[in-house]
C-alpha cells in the first residue's frame, strides 16, 4: 500500500472510476454538442444564447466543467508522479512536484469558479 495525499480520492479505485466516468460525460457532451451544431443550421446569437441558457444545458455544462477538471487533475497527477521524480530532479523532486501540482490545482480551481460564473452568473 502506497500512501498518497495529493491524488483526487487518495485511492486508486476511486481515481480510476472517476477518470472513466468523467471520460464518458465528456464524450456524451461532445457528441451532443456536435449533434446540435450539425442540426441547428444557420446559428445566430439568439438561438445559441437560448440553447446555452436553458436549464438542461446549464446542468450539462456544469457536469462537463467538473468532469474536465477531475479528468485533468487525475491525468496530470499521474504525469507529475511519473516524470517529476527523484530520477529526473534528485532531492528537489518533492518540491518541484508539489509546486507543479499546486499550480495545476489552482488553475483548475480558477477554471471551475470562472466556469460556474459563466454558466450560472446570469441565472
Amino acid at each position, binding site marked *: *500500500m*502506497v*500512501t498518497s495525499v495529493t491524488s483526487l480520492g*487518495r485511492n*486508486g479505485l476511486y481515481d*480510476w472510476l472517476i477518470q472513466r466516468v468523467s471520460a464518458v460525460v465528456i464524450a456524451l457532451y461532445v457528441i451532443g454538442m456536435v449533434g446540435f451544431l450539425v442540426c441547428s443550421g444557420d446559428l445566430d446569437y439568439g438561438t445559441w444564447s437560448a440553447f446555452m441558457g436553458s436549464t438542461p444545458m446549464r446542468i450539462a455544462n456544469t457536469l462537463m466543467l467538473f468532469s474536465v477538471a477531475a479528468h485533468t487533475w487525475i491525468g496530470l497527477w*499521474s504525469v507529475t508522479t*511519473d516524470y517529476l521524480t527523484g530520477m529526473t530532479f534528485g532531492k528537489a523532486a518533492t518540491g518541484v512536484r508539489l509546486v507543479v501540482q499546486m499550480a495545476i490545482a489552482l488553475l483548475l480551481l480558477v477554471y471551475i469558479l470562472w466556469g460556474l460564473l459563466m454558466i450560472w452568473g446570469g441565472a
Partner: protein
Amino acid sequence: MKVSVYRYNPETDREPSMKEYEVETNGKDLMVLEVLNLLKEQDPSLAFRRSCREGVCGSDGMNINGKNGLACITPLSEVAPGVKEGKKPLVLRPLPGLPVVRDLVVDMGVFYQQYEKVQPYLQNESPAPAIERLQTPEDRAKLDGLYECILCACCSTSCPSFWWNPDKFLGPAALLQSYRFLADSRDDATEQRLSRLDDPFSLFRCHGIMNCVSVCPKGLNPTRAIGHIRSMLLERGV
C-alpha cells in the same frame, strides 16, 4: 555477423558503452544465447547470466534489438529481419530500468521486493486437512496462464510505469502472481490481498499499454490478470 553488446564494468568504466564484435555463425539460426557463448569464447570478460538454456529458469532475460526476451529461446531469425543473415547487427542490452551490475547483468533487487509484497504463497486459516486441500478441476483451471511465470522480469522491465516508479508500482510480474493467489480457491486471504492493492500506485499505475503481454516469453497475459484484479476491487468497492 555483427553483434553490438552493452558493456559496463562499474569498477573500471566511467560510463557504459556499446562494443562491436564479429561472430561466425555459418548462416545457422542460432539462439541468441549461443551467440553470447561464442562471444564469451572471444572475450571472457563479458558478463551475462544463464542457466537452464531452455526457457525455464528465466536467468537470461535481456533486451534484444529493442525488445525484452530470453536469449536462450530467441532464435536469430525472430530477432529482426536481416539479423540471421548478417545484414543487420544483433544488439544486446541489459533489461531496461534496473541498475546494471556489470554488462548484461542487472540488479533484480527491486523486482524481487515487489514480488515479495504480494505475498506469493497460499494463505489459509482453516485447519489443514489430513492429506491435502482439494480443488475442483474448474477451480484448478483458473490458475492456468498464471502459475507458469518464471520471474524473468522481461515484462516488468518493459513497462514504463515500472521504469518511473519501480518502488511503488508492483509491475506486471508481481501483479500476475498476486492474481494467481487471488484466483486460487484454496486461498482465503482475498480481502487482505485486495486491501493492499487499492492505492493509486500498486496496481492502478497500469495504463494497459500491454508491453508486458508483447514480450512475455511464456505467452502469459499480465494485463488480463490486472484487469481481473481491478474487477475484484470494483466489486468490493462499489
